[in-house]
């Protein structure tokens, strides 16, 4: 498969993988760790959405599904497709507990991307496409235009019934 096309498709798949799992696990609902609330309030102050801000704060402060997606892709690339993802899932679980995060978003994200990498390997996707794709996906959320991304994440949280009750 063409490398550029593969990276773009992998970026779209990783984006949906981590955003849907994180929203489903309730990242926009409440700040799971203390630092996430400060980042969420700062984004709200700059004209963003509070639920989207909590989502972004939780990504920064603890390894969640985005970290699980990236680290499982790296481990699949260097160790091997199913077993690398499982090792990454265990290490992400330890990382969650080190950050005092009670959730399972990181582990779920790592396991789901391992299944996706395994299934898409039959149609020519390589794990390295997912490594670069995930960095591009996190760039669209946190790098380029944070307040706009937070509003989009807030709308998605509202649709999935995970909007924050804190105001």
């Amino acid at each position: 498969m063409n490398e550029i096309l593969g990276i773009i498709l992998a970026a779209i798949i990783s984006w949906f993988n981590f955003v849907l799992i994180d929203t489903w696990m309730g990242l926009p609902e409440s700040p799971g760790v203390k630092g996430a609330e400060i980042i969420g309030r700062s984004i709200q102050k700059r004209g963003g959405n509070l639920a989207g801000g909590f989502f972004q704060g939780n990504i920064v402060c603890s390894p969640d599904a985005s970290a699980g997606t990236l680290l499982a892709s790296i481990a699949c690339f260097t160790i091997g497709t199913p077993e690398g993802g499982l090792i990454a899932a265990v290490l992400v679980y330890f990382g969650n507990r080190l950050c005092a995060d009670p959730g399972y978003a990181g582990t779920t994200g790592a396991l789901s991307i391992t299944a996706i990498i395994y299934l898409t390997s039959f149609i020519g996707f390589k794990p390295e496409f997912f490594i670069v794709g995930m960095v591009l996906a996190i760039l669209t959320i946190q790098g380029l235009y944070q307040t706009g991304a937070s509003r989009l994440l807030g709308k998605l949280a509202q649709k999935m019934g995970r909007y924050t009750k804190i105001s």
Partner: protein
Amino acid sequence: MLIEILGIIVIIMALRTLLAQNREERLLCLNVIGFSMSAIIGLYIQTPFGAIIAITFFVTSTLSSNAIAYSLGRVKEEIMVK
């Protein structure tokens, strides 16, 4: 090719960090650099130990981001040197 794309992302984010208005915005941009750096480590050291290094780097960088974000809430009344 893959490492070059990641390198360009790191440079863009480094410039974006310099232009950021406040510390919270800067922390989010630094998180993207953390993602890119661990991806570069994984792609450059193509051995199983490379993956362990990348994962350890990433988890410890989120741990320090966690500590920084927590302490940012406490230094709001800090006097800035102009």
